[in-house]
């Protein structure tokens, strides 16, 4: 399934050139830093007033017809281990390939050493620890990733499949130790202790309500470390902080939260056409007060065609967190603590999130696919620039064509330490400030409520002094000229 988004007009190979660039004059500077081009598709500037078009093409090669009846397990891909616990189902036509972890089981997760079921994360080591025998162990890798350069079509982890909004949040598990039926409310946690035998029962398999992701990243930063980071961050912003906030600020109530994210691998191709300028000379003209800097530049037709493989593009999978309008919330600071070292994620095991709160995913792939396409184009544009820095004055891309050949989506719980403060503004308007810590890397970002009268007063004083000095400097210049 190829998905194409095009900005501007991009001529295909062999298409007549609308405005062929003139041959370089003799003695013209030679291109530096670039391989001699094998003259790919000719470049044509777009027609004047061309409107950028975003176009999503239908699949160019539909998947094979579906088998009758239920989905059938197909042969594993060559790059998948033959003993992989994952199955790949051949989907109905137009549907994505879904990977399901057949090795994952609901119910009692037992300590491999003593068989106990009272297991929780040890943040110091990032491992699961049995609370009876203190044995520590880890879940296996989530195992969904494969060679991105060979990705085709749409593939998804089971945890990224569409949410059934009518699916119940309450799931009943049968205790495998005593046979009792135990109700698990996934709105609270995917775990519940059996009320008869006290074994801990876990939901580890994906269910249609979006509560169970494909993978999880364990906390590594302890609460004490996060508190210290937050105190340092706020401590550097105390002078103009709101006095009520300063009085109430306390890091004891920070929360360890697992937030849901979509993580996407993309195999794509990009083609860029445009015009770039390389500065050849910078000089000053005029004299005295009329001095001005001028620039000479060479203009080039520029083209960059390349394949690119995006690894672990990360997007919020919660509607609340996707809303990042900074006039009404501070969710952007949670976005700013990305990225996470996603190679260290493990297969979801409810014991990892025990003792922490978690937010349930409520966003489907279709809701954010346009956002993902936009971000993939941004990545392509950045990579094109990284390979064209010769044009220090800039490049104006007149035509951009990014084609997504294959994509793999999965859902991951990522760990965040959150400090939140609700500011009540005049008129009763509320604004929720966050200070967020990436609980893997320790990266921190936050929003601190400002005491506006104080900031305006000090800015006014700065302006007054600046005005006096600025007028004086202008007078000196005038007299000196």
């Amino acid at each position, binding site marked *: 399934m190829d998905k194409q988004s095009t900005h501007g007009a991009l001529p295909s190979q062999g298409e007549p050139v609308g405005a062929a660039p003139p041959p*370089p004059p003799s003695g013209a500077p030679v291109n530096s830093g*670039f391989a001699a*081009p094998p003259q*790919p598709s000719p470049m044509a500037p777009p027609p004047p007033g061309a409107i950028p078009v975003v176009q999503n093409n239908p699949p160019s090669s539909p998947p094979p017809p579906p088998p009758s009846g239920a989905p059938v397990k197909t042969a594993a891909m060559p790059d998948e281990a033959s003993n992989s616990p994952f199955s790949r189902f051949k989907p109905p036509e137009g549907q994505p390939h879904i990977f399901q972890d057949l090795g994952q089981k609901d119910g009692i997760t037992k300590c491999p050493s003593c068989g106990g079921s009272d297991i929780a994360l040890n943040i110091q080591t990032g491992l699961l620890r049995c609370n009876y025998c203190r044995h520590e162990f880890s879940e296996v890798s989530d195992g969904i990733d494969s060679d991105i*350069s060979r990705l085709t079509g749409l593939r998804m982890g089971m945890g990224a499949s569409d949410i059934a909004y009518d699916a119940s949040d309450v799931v009943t598990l049968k205790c495998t130790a005593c046979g009792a039926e135990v109700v698990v409310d996934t709105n609270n946690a995917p775990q519940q202790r059996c009320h008869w035998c006290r074994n801990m029962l876990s939901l580890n398999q994906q269910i249609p309500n979006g509560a169970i992701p494909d993978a999880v990243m364990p906390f590594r930063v302890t609460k004490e470390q996060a508190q210290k980071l937050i105190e340092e961050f706020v401590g550097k*912003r105390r002078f103009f902080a709101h006095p009520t906030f300063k009085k109430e600020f306390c890091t004891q109530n920070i929360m360890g939260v697992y937030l849901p994210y979509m993580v996407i691998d993309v195999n794509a191709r990009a083609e860029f056409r445009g015009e*770039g*300028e390389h500065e*050849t000379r910078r000089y000053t*003209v005029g004299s005295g*007060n009329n*001095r*001005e*800097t*001028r*620039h*000479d*530049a060479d*203009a*080039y*037709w*520029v083209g*960059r*065609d*390349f*394949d*690119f*493989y995006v690894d672990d593009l*990360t997007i919020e999978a919660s509607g609340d967190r*996707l809303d*990042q309008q*900074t006039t009404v919330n*501070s969710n952007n*600071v949670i976005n*700013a603590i*990305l990225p996470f070292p996603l190679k260290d994620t493990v297969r979801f095991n409810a014991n990892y999130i025990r003792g922490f709160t978690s937010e349930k995913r409520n966003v489907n792939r279709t809701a954010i696919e*346009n*956002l*993902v396409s*936009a*971000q993939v*184009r*941004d990545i392509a*544009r950045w*990579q094109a*620039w990284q*390979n064209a820095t010769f044009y220090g*004055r800039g*490049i*104006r*891309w007149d035509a951009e064509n990014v084609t997504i050949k294959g994509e793999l989506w999965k859902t991951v719980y990522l760990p965040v330490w959150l400090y939140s403060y609700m500011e009540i503004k005049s008129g009763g308007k509320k604004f929720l400030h966050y200070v967020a810590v990436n609980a893997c890397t320790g990266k921190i970002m936050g929003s601190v409520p400002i005491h506006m009268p104080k900031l305006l007063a000090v*800015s*006014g004083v700065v302006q007054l*002094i*600046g*005005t006096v000095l*600025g*007028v004086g*400097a*202008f007078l000196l210049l005038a007299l000196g000229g």
Partner: protein
Amino acid sequence: MDISNLINTLAYVASDVDESALLPLVLLLSGFIFYGYMYTRYRNADKRHKHEMETTTIVANLVSTDTYFKSRKGLKNATMAGSNHKRVEGALNVGSGNKLLDMVK
């Protein structure tokens, strides 16, 4: 308030201003610059995950074309007019953020 936009605007204005007049201009705007800097430092409304450069990406099969066609003399601006090589569409908190939120179905 987006401080990066403010800085870009100032840089653009400054690139067209007599260099000797730059310091007085900055002094005359010092109160606004101070306010913008402090507001951004406390609120961090301009901060975001820079997905375009922070996402691991491998480029392969690169084909480059660079064809000289013209020299331009005496340009006043330090940057190319209309350059868009660093344009970002997929940021939810700046620029086209509202438009992207509309895209979210």
